[in-house]
């Protein structure tokens, strides 16, 4: 499920400094992967990484996405301290999984591939769960699943809307069957969110595949995608290999998905805050009052399978 993104353009990592702020070298110029326009990086960031020339939506890192989808200083992160284990004692051509995790943490500045927390958007409360593609292709393993389930459970408890933002290569190979089980685990939690009457709004971003597109990300009350985002079950290279068929133009783009009835909306990054705010209002307008917020949200401690 992960191989497809090897054929896509290299992502330029942006290391975080100790305060967690993005460090952008002053002199960096970025080339738009679609129109080849060379863009001054500060301008690109100011434009939320949308190409000013061709409107191509470049990938946005998790913390930049959170900044885009919340009011200033309103985001409270949850469960940064939950850490990845190596249940398979996994070693592949690149060496042990534990070494890879260490390198990935250093490179990405994140502890895992999903960032969760609560925030306000135009004064409206919401729970956010945003995947970080720079962390092993935002593949879903045990920690990704556990963090997402905690976010879902807290949203359900307080009847807060849940907004997930997903880019992912799929399930994380290095954790084997545990990764597959996160598909069931996250979807099961969403079933309960639904019964609690809180909406799940999913935003699919480039690229989104396999274990994520076939689980929580498409079990949503509203499914949005960014223009041009590539979303599917199997990656294009795998499909071409299996079917020996050339893929049609625009295959698996957000627009293709819209035409085929798979998603509700294609939303430009510029319009995202406004669309989301409108939707949050709709889901709140007829709803009964939310339960009074507990002073400190109790942390749901998951049991461990093998300990």
């Amino acid at each position, binding site marked *: *499920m992960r191989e497809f993104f090897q054929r896509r353009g290299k992502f330029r990592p942006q290391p975080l400094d100790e305060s967690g702020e993005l460090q952008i070298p002053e002199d960096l110029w970025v080339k738009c992967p679609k129109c080849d326009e060379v863009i001054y990086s500060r301008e690109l960031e100011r434009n939320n990484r949308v190409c000013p020339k061709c409107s191509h939506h470049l990938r946005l890192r998790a913390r930049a996405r959170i900044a885009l989808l919340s009011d200033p200083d309103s985001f409270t992160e949850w469960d940064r301290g939950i850490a990845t284990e190596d*249940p398979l004692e996994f070693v592949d*051509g690149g060496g042990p999984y534990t070494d890879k995790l260490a390198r990935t943490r250093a490179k990405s500045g994140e502890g895992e591939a999903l960032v969760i927390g609560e925030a306000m958007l135009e004064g409206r409360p919401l729970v956010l769960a945003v995947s970080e593609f720079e962390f092993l292709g935002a593949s879903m393993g045990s*920690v990704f699943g556990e963090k997402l389930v905690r976010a879902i459970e807290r949203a359900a408890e307080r009847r807060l809307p849940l907004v997930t933002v997903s880019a992912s290569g799929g*399930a994380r190979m290095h954790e084997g069957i545990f990764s597959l089980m996160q*598909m069931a685990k996250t979807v*099961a939690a969403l079933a309960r969110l639904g019964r609690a009457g809180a909406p799940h709004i999913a935003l699919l971003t480039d690229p989104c595949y396999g274990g994520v597109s076939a689980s929580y990300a498409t*079990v949503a009350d509203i499914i949005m995608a960014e223009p041009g985002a590539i979303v599917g079950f199997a990656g294009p290279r795998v499909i071409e290999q299996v079917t020996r068929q050339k893929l*049609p133009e625009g295959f698996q783009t957000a627009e293709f998905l819209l035409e085929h009835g*798979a998603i509700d909306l294609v939303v430009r990054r510029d319009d995202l805050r406004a669309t989301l705010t409108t939707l949050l209002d709709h889901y709140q307008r007829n709803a009964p009052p939310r339960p009074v917020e507990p002073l400190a949200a109790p942390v749901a401690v998951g049991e461990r399978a093998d300990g």
Partner: protein
Amino acid sequence: MADGGTPEPAPLAAWDRVKLARHPQRPHALDYLRELTTNFVELHGDRVFGDDHALIGGLAAFDGCTVMVLAHQKGGNTKENIDRNFGMARPEGYRKAERLLRHAEKFRFPVIALIDTPGADVGVGSEERGQATAIAESLLTMADLRVPSIAVVIGEGGSGGALAIGVADRMLMLENAIYSVASPEASAAILWRDAARAPEAAATMRITAPDLLGFGVIDEIVPEPEPAHERPRATIQATGAAIARHLRELLAAYPLDDPAAVDRLREARYRRYRRLGVWRDEADQALRVGSAAS
């Protein structure tokens, strides 16, 4: 990590199990239905687009009650396999499954799912008709099901295509079945860029029944003193006995005619999946960038 208390005196290598799980003479779903059930009525179609032959379903009498069966069906020969798409279901298959799951809820039929697939179908048509969404919605329906369910991996349990009918109250696995996040070949291609190293990937990925029992992913292994294709009837009978035992337990704990049992059943199923995964809870602290997993 240890495998846990599995009675496995002379364990086969993972790759040997892969070959057994895929053995063309290994009994497939319909063999089980013929041997273990009576009055099977196959129900076709997703009521939307088509009827998938790789994922079948229907009503059958089993152990004194009527159950809804869902199963991947592989063919016994090339012609059958082409008709069955080698057991790889298309979106229509998962939508049929979902339809029949709702039917089972409406009429309070317990659900028995037999898993035997290399994975969900990969193709342009399956993408166009929403393979990812079809699988996700089947997961949701199974996770939230109002009736008891038992899933058994009888051969290959390939990735999301297997899991789509495998979210259940009890999860059984035949001794020589495999269950994995990706096929050994796909895993090898990803891990070493060399599909030929599938046997190595099979071992690395920990995909055998004893592995999964140790991980707490499955509840019981149905032993194969001899491989299923060598003694198909005995294997099928042993599988049927295990299913019947679990079904009786579930029906005793969650009677079909007790409306209050539905919430308890769903809660127990949620707890079952909620705990799956391996992680370490540290104090909620500033992230130590680059720290090892320790």
